[in-house]
């Protein structure tokens, strides 16, 4: 009996490791990050903890967008709108009516999901048409943020949004904010990973690849599309709410079409159909400008144009987009993983054995 109990624990441990090894490796990385990143950041003039905090916020949205775009195959060029909705709802509630931050964030999240629900009819559109309609939604949201002055403060925006305050615990230092954001990110990533590896996730990926076949298999495609859209909108709203409380100041220019495009870049360049790709994508978009800005500090003498990087940012950004699309159309993470897999498979072939044979049947049956 004892032995069986031991085996069972071992079994659970093995299963957890197998299913969540990325998380088990990544969580300590996040946990320990401030330890090394603060001194390192100071020496290379890069506020890594602060930037990672931003990465976390964008990851929340990007992972939602990835569910919609990468997994379900429905393009959205207006996702910044949902971040905006979350941010404004929470900011208005807490500055005007003194709602606690968590309540505002919750309501913002729900409202973003509700707007997603209202917009669900556009999901009937496909391809370019869907992309354009969502772009339209993004632009319309921006105009409303700007023009509804009484509510949103117009272009001036909303300032002095209170800090996050969770059940009496004020989250004010950048390090605390970092931990808060990343705890949430890891939780959301975990839930999203569970989701995409479940029956639901399979159904979503299935209708992306063949809508007709998925329908024949009993997947109610229209309903799933709507639910994914709502989920993705809700994650946008959640990120927006947190963003407004961490940044303390929001105005419409922060939720313009440019944000939506940046979010798409995070998903597409980071990696379509990859939960971790969103982390990579968000990191790239957030870190790139700061890294280049910090370059002169590391290397002393750099060509003048590097110093003037901000002028060239658009060029570099645009070029990265185009080149990624041409050479790594599935994004950095997904393409790398696939390359790696293809290599191992090739090696297995060369050694004359078909790879799955080496896996005991029980393993194949019960898990990955």
């Amino acid at each position: 009996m004892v032995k069986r109990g031991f085996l069972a624990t071992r079994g659970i441990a093995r299963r957890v490791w197998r299913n969540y090894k990325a998380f088990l490796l990544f969580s300590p990385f996040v946990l320990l990050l401030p330890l090394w990143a603060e001194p390192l950041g100071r020496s290379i003039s890069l506020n890594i903890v602060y930037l990672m905090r931003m990465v976390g916020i964008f990851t929340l949205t990007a992972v939602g967008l990835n569910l919609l775009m990468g997994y379900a195959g429905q393009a959205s060029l207006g996702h910044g709108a949902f971040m905006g909705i979350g941010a404004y709802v929470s900011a208005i509630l807490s500055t005007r009516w003194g709602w606690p931050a968590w309540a505002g964030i919750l309501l913002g999240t729900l409202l973003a999901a509700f707007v997603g629900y209202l917009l669900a009819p556009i999901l009937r559109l496909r391809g370019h048409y869907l992309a354009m309609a969502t772009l339209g939604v993004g632009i319309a949201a921006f105009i409303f943020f700007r023009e509804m002055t009484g509510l949103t403060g117009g272009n001036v925006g909303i300032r002095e949004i209170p800090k996050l305050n969770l059940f009496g615990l004020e989250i004010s230092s950048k390090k605390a904010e970092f931990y808060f954001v990343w705890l949430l990110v890891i939780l959301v990533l975990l839930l999203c990973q569970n989701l995409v590896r479940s029956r639901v996730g399979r159904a979503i990926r299935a209708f992306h690849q063949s809508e007709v076949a998925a329908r024949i298999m009993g997947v109610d495609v229209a309903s799933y599309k709507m639910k994914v859209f709502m989920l993705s909108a809700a994650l946008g709203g959640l990120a927006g709410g947190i963003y407004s409380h961490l940044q303390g100041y929001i105005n419409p220019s922060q939720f313009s079409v440019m944000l939506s495009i940046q979010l798409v870049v995070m998903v597409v360049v980071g990696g379509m159909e990859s939960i971790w790709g969103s982390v990579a994508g968000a990191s790239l978009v957030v870190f790139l400008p700061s890294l280049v800005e910090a370059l002169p500090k590391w290397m002393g003498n750099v060509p003048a144009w590097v110093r003037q990087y901000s002028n060239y940012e658009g060029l570099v950004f645009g070029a990265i987009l185009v080149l990624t699309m041409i050479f790594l159309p599935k994004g950095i993470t997904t393409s790398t993983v696939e390359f790696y897999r293809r290599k191992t498979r090739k090696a297995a072939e060369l050694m004359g054995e078909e790879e799955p044979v080496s896996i005991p049947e029980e393993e194949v049956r019960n898990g990955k």
Partner: protein
Amino acid sequence: MGAFFSNLPQYLVNGIGSSCVYILMAMGFSLVYSSTGIINFAQGEFAAISALVAYTLSMDLGLPLLLAVAGALALTGFVGLLLERAVIRPLQGKGTLTAIIATIGASIFLKAGARIIWPEEAYKVPEFTQGQLNLPKASFNAQLLWMLGLTAFTVAAMYLLMNGTKLGKGLRACAINPEAARLVGIDVSLMSMAAFAIAALLGGLAGLVSAPFANYGMGLYLGIKGFTAAVIGGLGDVYGAVLGGITVGLLEEVVAGFLSVVLGVSSGYKDAVAVILLISVLLFRPQGLVGKGLVEKV
């Protein structure tokens, strides 16, 4: 209400002026979409580039207006060609989303490039003519005649090109059935280049007639309006673009007038007109108002 109606002729005249610009933009979108199946998000940049080049050629280099315009158009067409070769060609058959992102990337790149060369807030591009013409109930800029003339000329030229020339027939064939087009010996890849070059010229022309002020950021504004017009006319239908352009142009000015004069609401909402129109048409009549556009299949 009375003021609104007495101003209506003026709104309509203004709407026609904007329409010309939108029509030219929309035709560019439609042409590229029909012959390559791609919506070129960088279409707006063509307008900006050509207007700014025209500025440099005429103001900085002192070329006569005609030469400056020709030079600007030629250069913009060349940029269109380059875009097709460098971005669109390598992405053939890689899916809608990939193409969308790549053209967005190209648009960001071109805009940033333009900003480096023309960093100022705005440049003054010479007008073709100056002066003012008055009608009983409305007045307009003499430039408007040029806009109307050029737009009419361009629509006619496009008609002749598409129906009377080998190139045009090839483009139409590609739009209708690319495979059959290949089988009758049409070089589809050449047609794709031609479509981009012509679309760049159309965009360039739109930028030139929307003179006299140009800056690197103007592409987005014109692009969204032009795209809306293209969708309303039925994406891929080059002549539907004319209808779409007129619809957007007129509606925008009339709504702006209505909002401001009748309702007393900020006309800042005016920009939402095109966007809401875009979403509604996409939802309820994705084939466009006249219903000849190509609707994307699974």
